[in-house]
């Protein structure tokens, strides 16, 4: 059984690599044989060239670091604020009902519309990007954690009460841990949202970061460099989600049934 699963995993990996290689080869062929304009579409080899160049002049590491830092800070801030608010709404059904329209209103604002205000309030440096990333995260974190808290089994609450639990016991020993699943599902979503928020912030006004690199290369029509910075962005997103997945596994050991 285990062996079979291992073989399937290997097969999936081979197919994924094959698909990627095929796509890149077709792209390279199309642009080098001028079926596709290399100026408008770049080419894998040109993109690779820019990646090497950006690595050599240090901008690849620096921009990735800057965007990564903004993303991580916004992710943490947004999730802490959102989760604390979402879980505490469990405490008061009244407050939850009062807040509901405001939460829906906040959730429906396109984050990009807030970018100019954030730049005005927090300046053109790190803080405004962190604010953008935080805003992209906070409502999702609030809604998922509140949903998690409200989904707690009523029988389980009754059981806690028969064991003599006060509301705070029910909150700390039941509601919080049983919401962890939803909260972590939220983490996996919001890591991407935080990155998008940070990059939108960088698009608006910035001196550094991957969003800045994409924006600058784009306005100068250096398409392969746009793609090179995009590759770095994707790599950053993959690394961050991998880390979130690892932390989830570490914090929820009961979920791994041997």
């Amino acid at each position, binding site marked *: 059984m285990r062996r079979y699963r291992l073989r399937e995993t290997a097969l999936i990996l081979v197919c994924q690599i094959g698909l990627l290689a095929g796509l890149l080869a077709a792209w390279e062929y199309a642009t080098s044989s001028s079926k596709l304009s290399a100026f408008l579409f770049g080419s894998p080899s040109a993109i690779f060239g820019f990646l090497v160049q950006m690595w050599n002049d240090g901008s690849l590491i620096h921009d990735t670091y800057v965007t990564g830092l903004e993303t991580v800070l916004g992710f943490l801030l947004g999730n802490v604020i959102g989760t604390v608010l979402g879980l505490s709404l469990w405490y008061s059904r009244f407050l939850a009902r009062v807040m509901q329209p405001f939460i829906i209103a906040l959730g429906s604002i396109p984050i990009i519309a807030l970018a100019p205000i954030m730049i005005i309030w927090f300046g053109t440096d790190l803080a405004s990007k962190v604010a953008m990333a935080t805003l992209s995260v906070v409502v999702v974190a609030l809604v998922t954690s509140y949903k998690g808290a409200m989904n707690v089994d009523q029988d389980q609450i009754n059981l806690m009460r028969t064991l*003599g*639990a006060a509301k705070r016991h029910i909150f700390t020993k039941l509601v919080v841990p049983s919401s962890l699943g939803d909260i972590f599902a939220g983490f996996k979503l919001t890591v991407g949202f935080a990155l998008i928020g940070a990059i939108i912030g960088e698009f608006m006004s910035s001196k550094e970061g991957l969003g800045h690199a994409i924006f600058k290369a784009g306005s100068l029509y250096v398409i392969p460099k746009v793609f090179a910075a995009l590759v770095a962005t994707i790599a950053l997103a993959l690394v961050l989600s991998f880390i979130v997945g690892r932390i989830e596994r570490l914090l929820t050991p009961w979920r791994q049934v041997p």
Partner: protein
Amino acid sequence: MPSSALAVAAGHDVPPLRAEALRKVFGEEDENPVEVVGDISFALAEGEIVSIVGPSGCGKTTLLNLLCGLIPATSGTVHWYGQPAAGTPKAVGYMLQKDLLLPWRTALDNVTLGLEIRGVPDGVRRQRAHVLLDQLGLHGFADHYPATLSGGMRQRVALARTLAHDPHVLLLDEPFAALDFQTKLLIESDTARLVRKERRAMLLITHDIEEAVSMSDRVLVLSHRPTQVKSVYTIELEGDRMDMMAARHDPRFGDYVAAIWGDLEIRPQ
């Protein structure tokens, strides 16, 4: 032990639990309120096991929830040791058909949950939990998460959790329904022994008439909704009443089962 202290203070002739003219109507303010519990009175004496059987949906779980204060009664009173109930009584162990184990806690930590809430020191509660798990045949499984235990083992962990704070009265809602026959007989016998030897009291809700007859001193048969006590059987069988297999060998066993079957008048709803 606060429960036994209470019992002594109240005197031994005061039943641990007494319900009088208990009624429950759901949605009283609505257009069509549902009267679930009609008018129920009964008492549970010390050392006694009473079973409640009744048609599906007649209000057994509702009755149990009324008794332990999880929902308010429409009218009537519940007395614990002669005192009018205020909220969920402390000396009660409540157990449902669902084991309701917390998946993020190991077997041991599930058993200690109630003790933790009551502020019992860590060392004491771990020791108590180990003793209970060993007694219930779960030696060596203390550190397992519920997901890695079988249904029967989970149910035993839930029973250990119910017993951990040394409740004087057990209110059990179909706790053994999910078990295979052999495990069921074992756990039933364990539970009966515990109640009878330590002079506790137990109210057992069940669909299993043989379980009701083999375990109990009395069986209350409830009617359809709004439910009332339709008949009461005092069960007299040979032996010490702690062995569920032996109970089944008594010739009167079959008569009780047949009579209760007749009373239940299974009819399509």
